[in-house]
């Protein structure tokens, strides 16, 4: 029912109702005008003729009778003609208006039918969409539709795409959650198993004092590792569930980078790894931006705490997967809309086939697993997520020795 009403509203927009009134009024006015004009002309003609008749009657008195009769007859005939003409015009006008109205009705009915068909089609297609089928394609004869309908169709399609995207996103999110749960439970199993083993050995009690002490110590280590793992997983799942709000603000690259380096400083020191900083300054040689100072002092737009965490994750990897007495070089530079931070190490490097996989959740490279037992494989995943969330990026390059991560972040205002 609603659909029908909508159809009428649509047609109402196309055929204007006021048109009937104007057409009718126009026709009647025109008829009146013609009749009055004709009457006026006939009267004037008649007056002229009477005058001539009078003059002729004076010259030919014997013809007075027939001349008068002739003029009277002519006058009557003219008047009758006008009356007939007026009647014809009047009825003709009505007939024309009737025909016009009929055509309009017919047209209206046709449009209404067409609209109903169009709307039915749309309804059918949206039903299909809601049931999860394919998105509607083209509607037959769509090119012939009025522009108004094409606009409606465009809007409808937009809505369809929106829903399809939404459905896809929901599906993807559901899958993500499922795989996150699977991944996490998998990650928890291994340390738990080794904890249980040392615990069971302790409970069995068939141990020397030294062994007993050793297992206790090991258990302690396991618990610490487990706690670290839990902390990382909690961070991860919070980020995944958007429980952590990343709030970009204007801050200094210097501040964020210093915080990140502080986080890994002790670990680097233990391995005698030096961390060097190079400032490449502004790239734009034409000096389009008059900002003074190097890139290290540049303003960036990001969440300081989370961005420092992202930098620290990359630095931590650099420390973890490098040998003793090596160097980590941090190079900063200012581009036009971005700053970049290159973090280059002299470590084990990344295999070419692993370049695309390293950002995957819980992915750990083959050599990385051999080199360091602890590690969950969320560092780079988290870093990339945090950076991309803020309009930044991270890419890795292979170097002759080790690897180089280039991180970009948008400049501050």
């Amino acid at each position, binding site marked *: 029912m609603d659909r029908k009403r909508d159809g009428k509203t649509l047609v109402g927009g196309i055929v204007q109702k006021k048109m009937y009134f104007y057409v009718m009024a126009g026709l009647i006015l025109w008829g009146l005008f013609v009749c009055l004009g004709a009457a006026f002309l006939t009267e004037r003609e008649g007056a002229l003729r009477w005058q001539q008749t009078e003059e002729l009657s004076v010259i030919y008195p014997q013809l007075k009778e027939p001349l008068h009769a002739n003029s009277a007859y002519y006058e009557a005939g003219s008047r009758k003609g006008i009356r007939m003409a007026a009647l014809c015009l009047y009825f003709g006008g009505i007939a024309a208006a009737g025909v016009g109205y009929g055509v309009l009705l017919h047209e209206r009915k046709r449009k209404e039918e067409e609209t109903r068909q169009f709307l039915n089609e749309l309804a059918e297609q949206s039903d299909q969409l809601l049931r999860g089928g*394919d*998105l509607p*394609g*083209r509607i037959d004869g769509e090119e012939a539709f009025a522009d108004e309908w094409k606009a409606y169709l465009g809007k409808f399609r937009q809505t369809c*795409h929106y829903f*399809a*995207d939404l*459905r*896809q996103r929901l599906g993807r999110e559901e899958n993500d959650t499922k795989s996150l749960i699977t991944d996490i439970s998998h990650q928890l199993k291994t340390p738990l198993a080794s904890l249980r083993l040392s615990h069971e050995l302790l409970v069995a009690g068939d141990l020397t004092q030294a062994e007993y002490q050793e297992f206790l110590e090991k258990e302690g280590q396991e618990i610490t590792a487990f706690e670290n793992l839990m902390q990382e997983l909690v961070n991860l799942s919070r980020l995944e569930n958007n429980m952590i709000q990343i709030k970009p603000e204007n801050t200094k690259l210097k501040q964020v980078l210093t915080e990140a380096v502080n986080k890994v400083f002790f670990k680097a020191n233990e391995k005698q790894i030096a961390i060097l900083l190079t400032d490449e300054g502004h*790239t734009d040689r*034409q000096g*389009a931006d008059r900002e003074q100072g190097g890139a290290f002092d540049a303003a960036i737009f990001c969440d300081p705490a989370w961005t420092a965490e992202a930098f620290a994750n990359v630095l931590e990897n650099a420390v973890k997967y490098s040998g003793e007495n090596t160097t980590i070089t941090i190079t900063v*530079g200012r*581009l*036009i*809309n*971005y700053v*970049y931070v290159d973090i280059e190490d002299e470590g084990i490097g990344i295999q*070419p086939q692993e*370049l*695309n*996989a390293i*950002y995957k959740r819980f992915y750990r490279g083959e050599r990385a697993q051999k080199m360091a037992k602890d590690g969950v494989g969320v560092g780079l995943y988290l870093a990339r997520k945090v950076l991309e969330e803020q*309009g*930044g*990026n*991270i*890419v*890795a*390059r292979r170097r002759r020795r080790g690897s180089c991560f*280039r991180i*970009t972040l*948008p400049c501050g205002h």
Partner: protein
Amino acid sequence: MSDILQVKDLVKYYGAGENLVKAVDHTSLAVERGRFTAIVGRSGSGKSTLLHLIGGLDRPDSGKVIIDNQDIYALGKDDLAKFRRRKIGFIFQDFNLIPSLTVWENIVLPMGLDGRKVKENEVAEIMAKIGLTQKKDALPSTLSGGQKQRVAIARALAASPAIILADEPTGNLDSRTETEVMSLLKNCVEEYGQTLVMITHDETIAQMADAVIFVEDGKVVSQS
């Protein structure tokens, strides 16, 4: 259907006999709406031919390319040209800007050709985002490579196509400019909800993509 692009069993061979080059050899792939997909391959792997076929710049020997529900090779020549103008944005390695037109004119050109009304506010917003506002009336010859490519990006975005195809967009740029241009491209595409398909031989910039497709000898060898 939220695959905006579907390539079905696409074939394009050049030459014959011993000189037969299988540029695209029964390739099928799909690209999701709103994602950034990189097609990676060495030079000569047929990736450029593949992109040209996807963009309707060439005709395949067989197979289908479906963009936004439309099998593009079922269209006539004129209709294909119209479709291309309306639905596909291109970003080329060598920028393809018209030398005699200003930056602004270059950006609005595709819309003008299509007889669409230019929404000046939107274009100005894109230009500001990409950092071109001051270069609005400059001629391409006065711009650096990075600036030219930024104009090309703005041109592709302004026409709000269904899909943007980029062929080695940073091939002619130095490493730092590449970083700038790629970051801009990626973030703008995300912001405007656009779909981007990029051809590259560089696995480093491919890391920025949401999905990576590797091609070798005209075939898709892996997808991740």
